[in-house]
C-alpha cells in the first residue's frame, strides 16, 4: 500500500502570498490531520478532518484553513504568509482502531520557506 503522500516537497514564497499544500491519505483512511513543525520544535496540531468535516482545530489564526475532498485527500491553505510560517508541514492519515486509539501515519512533509 502507498503511504501518505504530500506535495510539493519544497516551496518558497514571499511574505503576503498564499500557499496551498496537498495531502493524499492512505487508502481506506477517512481522516487527515495537519501539523506545523518549526525548526527545532515538535509538531503542533493545526486541523483534523474526518469524513470531510472539520473535527478539531489547533491554536492557529484564521489565515490557516483546510478542506477535505470526497476522495479524502486534503488541502491546507495559508493566506497572507508571514516569515514565522516557515516550517515543515506534516500531514497525517488516521484510522480509528477502537478503544480510544487513533493510529496516525505521517507523510514526508512539505518544507515551506517564506522570504
Amino acid at each position, binding site marked *: 500500500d502507498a503511504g501518505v503522500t504530500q506535495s510539493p516537497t519544497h516551496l518558497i514564497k514571499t511574505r503576503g502570498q498564499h500557499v496551498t499544500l496537498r495531502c493524499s491519505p492512505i487508502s481506506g483512511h477517512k481522516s487527515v490531520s495537519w501539523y506545523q513543525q518549526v525548526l527545532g*520544535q515538535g509538531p503542533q496540531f493545526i486541523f483534523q478532518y474526518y469524513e470531510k468535516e472539520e473535527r478539531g482545530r489547533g491554536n492557529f489564526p484564521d489565515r490557516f484553513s483546510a478542506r477535505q475532498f470526497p476522495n479524502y485527500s486534503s488541502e491546507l491553505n495559508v493566506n497572507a504568509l508571514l516569515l514565522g510560517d516557515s516550517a515543515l508541514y506534516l500531514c497525517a492519515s*488516521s484510522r480509528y482502531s477502537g478503544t480510544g*486509539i487513533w493510529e*496516525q501515519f505521517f*507523510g514526508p512533509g512539505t518544507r515551506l520557506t517564506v522570504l
Partner: protein
Amino acid sequence: SQQGEEDPQALSIQEGENATMNCSYKTSINNLQWYRQNSGRGLVHLILIRSNEREKHSGRLRVTLDTSKKSSSLLITASRAADTASYFCATDGVNNDYKLSFGAGTTVTVRA
C-alpha cells in the same frame, strides 16, 4: 504550547550503547506514543503505550509509562548508526483523542 517535554534535548552515544530519553506531560492522557524523525523529514511511528499499561517492548525498544508522575521513558538498546535521529513523545488527551501533542524532542547521535 507543547504538552510534552523530552529530556535530554540531545544525546551522543557510541554504537552498541543504550540510549535513554524521558518525556513528561501535563494533562491526563489516553495513550502516549513515540516517534522518530530523520533529518527533518516525516515522522515514523515507533510504539504506543496505553494509559493503563506500564511497560511495552518492541524489538530493541522499551517504553515505560508512569501516569502518577506523568512521565514516560524510551530505551533503545544496542544502538546503531541508523538510530541517529530525533525522537518525540506524543500524547492524546482524554477529551481530544484525535489530537496529538508533541514535545520538543531529543536528538540522538550514535557514533560509529
